[in-house]
């Protein structure tokens, strides 16, 4: 497991029904590309976040494949329409099998 991996998201606390809100996400992760060599010339094994998903109440909002060229601490920003109050669930999948999750509630007024 990579060290100091910490997911963070920013979702507005409230929204109007059907409004598109801006969601910002970032996970601190080294995103080791698998292309680099250490000082002895050995390949440093690839370890990246290879998939990121966002679901709203069980419905998939965003399902992204992340590639080795994406830099350290991948930041993903997107818009999502909010039909009703509920929670967003964010999931990051690591090459080593670790899964990092966080949820954030939003209230429709």
């Amino acid at each position, binding site marked *: 497991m990579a060290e100091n991996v910490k997911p*963070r998201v920013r979702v507005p606390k409230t929204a109007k029904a059907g409004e598109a809100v801006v969601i910002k996400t*970032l996970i601190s992760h080294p995103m080791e590309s698998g292309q680099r060599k250490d000082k002895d010339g050995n390949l440093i094994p690839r370890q990246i976040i290879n998939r990121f998903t966002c679901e709203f109440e069980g419905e998939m909002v965003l399902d992204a494949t992340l590639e080795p060229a994406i830099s350290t601490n991948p930041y993903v920003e997107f818009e999502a329409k909010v039909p009703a109050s509920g929670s967003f669930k964010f999931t990051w999948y690591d090459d080593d099998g670790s899964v990092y999750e966080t949820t954030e509630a939003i209230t429709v007024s």
Partner: protein
Amino acid sequence: MSQKYALIGLVALAAVAGAAKADPVDDTLVINDEIEMITVAPAPDHLKDVFDVVRSGWLYRETETRDMQRDDFENPAMLHVEAAAAVWSTPEGTEGKSCASCHNDPESMAGVRPTMPKVNPNNGELWALEQYVNACRTERMGAEAWKWDSQDMRDMTALISSVSRGLPMNVAIDGPAAPFWEKGKEIYYTRYGQLELSCANCHEDNNGRYIRADHLSQGQTNGFPVYRFRTTNLVSMHNRFKGCIRDTRGEPFEIGSPEFVALELYVASRGQGLSVEGPAVRQ
């Protein structure tokens, strides 16, 4: 005939000079929709014959770079601030103390960054923030001193700076600080290296113009430590000084040397009144 060519040459030169001139933007910096920053301030008295106003380096950066600093979520330096906040409350050294043991929350450091560097009343030396941090570590915590330009030190100075954001730079340059300030001023106006450039040649005479692809600012220090895209990490003020002198093809002073601390004081005094922005985002 030759007169005609000379005229064309002159027009071409004027066009080039026009393209190379790019003024800082007129923009307002509010961080997290909350902290209002002073990015333009009246020049301090000692600088009145040089500038009318002093400007933050933020105004010389591209739109995207400026936006990144508006929101802590997007400011990559805040990851380092977060890392330092964890270190802040972790006991280290023989005394079993952490920063928090004496200073409580990092917020208690608000107001420290704008006054740095400052003469240490105990020994009469001019000390930068890094030296005060290390004095705490070695004398009160019984821990090892951090290297000036280490990741731990840059992270910690970013944390201490971050809680002063919005407060105006306010370094003491009179009394016991006066001789250090004079020394810093002398360094600022001394031409170094094979290119024979002083700080003033770029940041005073030519700020707003381009040096190759780089938009020269006034060289203010209120944003340090800064997150630079070039290194994708925090950069300390002394590292930046060193880089500038190296670029003149000169032999830089050591990071942490009394010369650089004196220069730090003088340059800080040129930005009196500008808000502390550290950790700022720069190119």
